[in-house]
């Protein structure tokens, strides 16, 4: 199995944005920085399972007329994003992978994976990568709302999200 493991497709453009659905638990609860109230991405939402971390790529979405707002049910999910170049700088890779189980064919065709050097679970390695990735991601908690970077310092903008 190790011989067939493909970590990265070099033809995937660095400029492509990878979008990640972030399920809220409970549905209504938006995790927030307890100091400034900015929406917080949780490491637990960045799961590396089955064949990688599931994402959607902006260039594939453009080709299939899929918008970020159409990626998830906003009653249950927020949306995170990171650029492919950042993912690769963190020693992970990306590749396209059609989601055959998605009832929305165009959305399924926009699907891809983030991978490490090893297949899941690769736990100890992934846990460090995901924390580094999380710090560089942005989150949106409602379809018409703003994108929030993960706060490294206190700010006043988050509580209004």
């Amino acid at each position: 199995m190790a011989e067939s493991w493909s970590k990265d497709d070099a033809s995937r453009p660095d400029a492509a944005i990878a979008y990640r659905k972030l399920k809220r638990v409970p549905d209504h609860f938006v995790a927030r920085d307890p100091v400034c109230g900015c929406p917080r991405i949780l490491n637990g939402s960045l799961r590396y399972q089955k064949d990688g971390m599931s994402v959607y790529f902006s260039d594939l979405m453009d080709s299939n007329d899929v918008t970020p707002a159409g990626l998830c049910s906003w009653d249950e999910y927020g949306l995170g994003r990171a650029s492919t170049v950042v993912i690769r700088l963190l020693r992970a890779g990306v590749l396209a992978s059609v989601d055959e189980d998605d009832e929305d064919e165009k959305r399924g065709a926009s699907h891809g994976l983030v991978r490490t050097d090893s297949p899941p679970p690769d736990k100890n390695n992934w846990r460090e990568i995901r924390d580094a990735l999380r710090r560089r991601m942005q989150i949106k908690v409602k379809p018409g709302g703003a994108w929030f970077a993960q706060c490294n310092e206190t700010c006043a903008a988050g509580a209004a999200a």
Partner: protein
Amino acid sequence: MTLVADELNTGAAEEAVAQRRTVAALAQAGRFAEVHARKLDPFHEGTREPDAPRTNVSWERYARRVLWAIASDDENGISYERADRYFRFLARCMTAQTVFPFLTPDLEGGLVIEWSSGRTLIEIDLESDGEYFFLHTDGSPQPLIKDSGRVSGFNISHLRGLLSVFSQEVSLRNPEWRQFYV
């Protein structure tokens, strides 16, 4: 519901009140499995403390609500009995002053517990097979602490110390932080 209202209740209403008190008592003890077996909802409006200010919510109530939601969804792979155990683990880490954690199921029966603000992350992953993974980072290239092993051997007192410092720093900067957890 006041004593006067109780006295005026019909038998059916009295039964409902008694049931809510039973639910509250079980949920207070984190006994989710029994609540589920009796097909009760521990967060029914009848169990809510009516006059409790929103910013005075306890970590116990917050954690029970989240763990109940997690156990209620079969896709998360966490039974009510396991949710009980995770609640008891939290009870060993938390005090009334500790900032509330974020709880996320790993979809394999485990739970990811995170205390997070600004650059600081304190994370412990409890896996379904009894293993843990612990991470303490501040955004530096190398983690401050990275550790794993059997939960039975985990240094809870060290975690409590980290959480105490973290919670004091958060509370100094925002004493009303609980508003973000309701």
